[in-house]
């Protein structure tokens, strides 16, 4: 009780000046989600299982590349030439590893919206909205925490792929930095998209349905797992409209040198020049994040 008396005397001094910048509270909101994430490593581990299984199963065990070359009397050099022409690299495992970076980003970003739904369900969203924190900051915080999480997970997947034998001949500081810039743009755009789709929703089943509706199509209408060359013509057209394809294409050019003259000579064609890949992703990220903030002003309410 004595303690309470003391607290009473101090608790209601004159209020200090409040920070009124439109971005105040952004770091606090982002950090809250990140704390919850790293305090619960199970979530991280589970999300890494899938890409690693894919790498092990399709990258190592199945040896998909052999499907194209398993005729009698084919020499090792000929196999390499066919691989290079099909995948832009002589190692299908490395080809797939680049695709898995996109996979982990896509699946992490998809759950950015889920965290909005939980916050609404558990009342935290109402608390945040009764404070002067910007509606744009609430949305951007959700996007940023997803961006940080997915980039960290992508880094782990890359490290594991290298440990399992990914071809590092083309790695350089620029290649890796460029790769993460590319992945950053991709996750920024995708996270904005999924947060946007969750702005009005307080129902996690609907949200799950949205994730499933978008995720697998985005993955399988891209070049993440299989070469565009072997796809039917209509699907090749769809691939060109899928931003994920440009991210994967750019990453392969940087990490695996799939844009090299040798690959081109062997018959591999990149989806687009590297600068176009960057431009497409930058536009994708810019449009969706701006749209997300504009919609948050209109839609984010109780």
């Amino acid at each position, binding site marked *: 009780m004595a303690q309470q008396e003391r*607290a009473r005397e101090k*608790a209601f001094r004159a209020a200090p000046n*409040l*920070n*009124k910048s439109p971005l105040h509270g952004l770091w606090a909101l982002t950090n809250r989600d990140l704390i919850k994430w790293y305090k619960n490593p199970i979530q991280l581990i589970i999300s890494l299982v899938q890409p690693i299984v894919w790498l092990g199963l399709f990258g190592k065990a199945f040896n998909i590349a052999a499907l194209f070359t398993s005729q009698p009397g084919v020499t090792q050099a000929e196999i390499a030439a066919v691989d290079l022409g099909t995948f832009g690299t002589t190692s299908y495992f490395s080809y797939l590893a680049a695709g898995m970076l996109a996979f982990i980003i896509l699946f992490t970003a998809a759950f950015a919206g889920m965290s909005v739904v939980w916050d609404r369900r558990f009342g935290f969203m109402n*608390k945040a909205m*009764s*404070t002067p*924190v910007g509606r744009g900051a609430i949305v951007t915080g959700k996007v940023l925490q997803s961006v940080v999480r997915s980039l960290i997970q992508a880094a782990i997947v890359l490290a594991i792929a290298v440990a399992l034998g990914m071809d590092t001949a083309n790695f350089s500081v620029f290649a890796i930095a460029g790769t993460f810039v590319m992945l950053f743009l991709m996750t920024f755009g995708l996270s904005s998209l999924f947060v946007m789709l969750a702005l009005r929703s307080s129902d996690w089943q609907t949200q799950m349905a949205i994730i499933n509706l978008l995720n697998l199509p985005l993955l399988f209408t891209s070049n993440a797992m299989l070469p565009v060359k072997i796809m039917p013509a209509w699907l090749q057209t769809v691939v060109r409209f899928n931003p994920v394809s440009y991210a994967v294409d750019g990453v392969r050019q940087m990490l695996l040198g799939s844009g090299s003259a040798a690959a081109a000579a062997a018959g591999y064609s990149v989806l687009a020049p590297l600068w176009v890949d960057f431009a497409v992703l930058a536009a994708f990220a810019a449009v969706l994040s701006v749209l997300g903030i504009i919609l948050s002003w209109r839609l984010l309410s109780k």
Partner: protein
Amino acid sequence: MVDSGGVVVDVESLSKTFGTLKAVDGVTFQIREGEIFGFLGPNGAGKTTTINMLTTLLRASGGKAVINGYDIRKQPNEVRRSVGVVPQEYTADEDITGLQNILLCADLYGLPRNDSRPHAMELLELVELQEAANRKVGTYSGGMRRRLELASGLINYPKLLFLDEPTLGLDVQTRSAVWRYIRMLKEEYRMTLFLTTHYLEEADSLCDRIAIIDHGHIIKIGTPDELKATVGGDIIAVGVAEAEPDISADIAKIPLVKDVKKNGNEYRIKSEVGEESSIQIIDLVRSKGLHVTKISLTKPSLDEAYLELTGRSIREEESNKMDAFKQRITMMRARR
């Protein structure tokens, strides 16, 4: 900043429509600086919806409201900065500690970092949670969570605090603690409080003024005593030794007496001021040569006032008897 005449909340014809449902249907009221103003009404009356509009969580469908001199439509951020909100549901994040939750709120309000930690600790002490400050909120009891919500609502040094059903579902001890905090906020910190409740005794003992709200309408606003007075006055029961003669007509002539009923040896008298009338009644009975055997004076409770007020409104507005019956059941539930 504060409006002229010490009016901190000025609400005019505020309404909110959900689809076809008029959840709040044109409420008008004012709250003066330093008072505890209560919204009393059954479930679904529109209490939370009103608070949500005043704290800018919901956009109003019609009408206007000025809070601390700021218009809720045009200056929502100024409103948010100048008021504290303790919502009906729990909003704290269960995965982080109580202290982390309050610090998070401080950041959302834009409080300077060097101030927010000591202030958060003071508020936790105020609601007697300092020992649990570093525990995850998931381990808190319902009462502790309610007190944490109260502390979070005070982090931005508000002069006006909105409390939505602050004692809902609490045990007697925690409820009286919350009442103690509320009185302390008013008396020691000169805060203005707006609370909603469906507990009559809570409204009666805490509020300076009460608005009775039902179906989105304010039925009556007044001090608890004024509302009780609408019952029609104090009830005086007088027992006499002799059943005859009937002196009802003489009693009715006494000033302030409004109604007299005779039942065997007992008179039930309604009076505006029971204390004064009872003495005059005794004098009258004796002057008629009768003997008083017993006398009792009952002050009307808010319970009776509430039933009378909401009941009357139902009879006036609805011809459908079945509807009226259903309303009565709802009210009975709310009275519990």
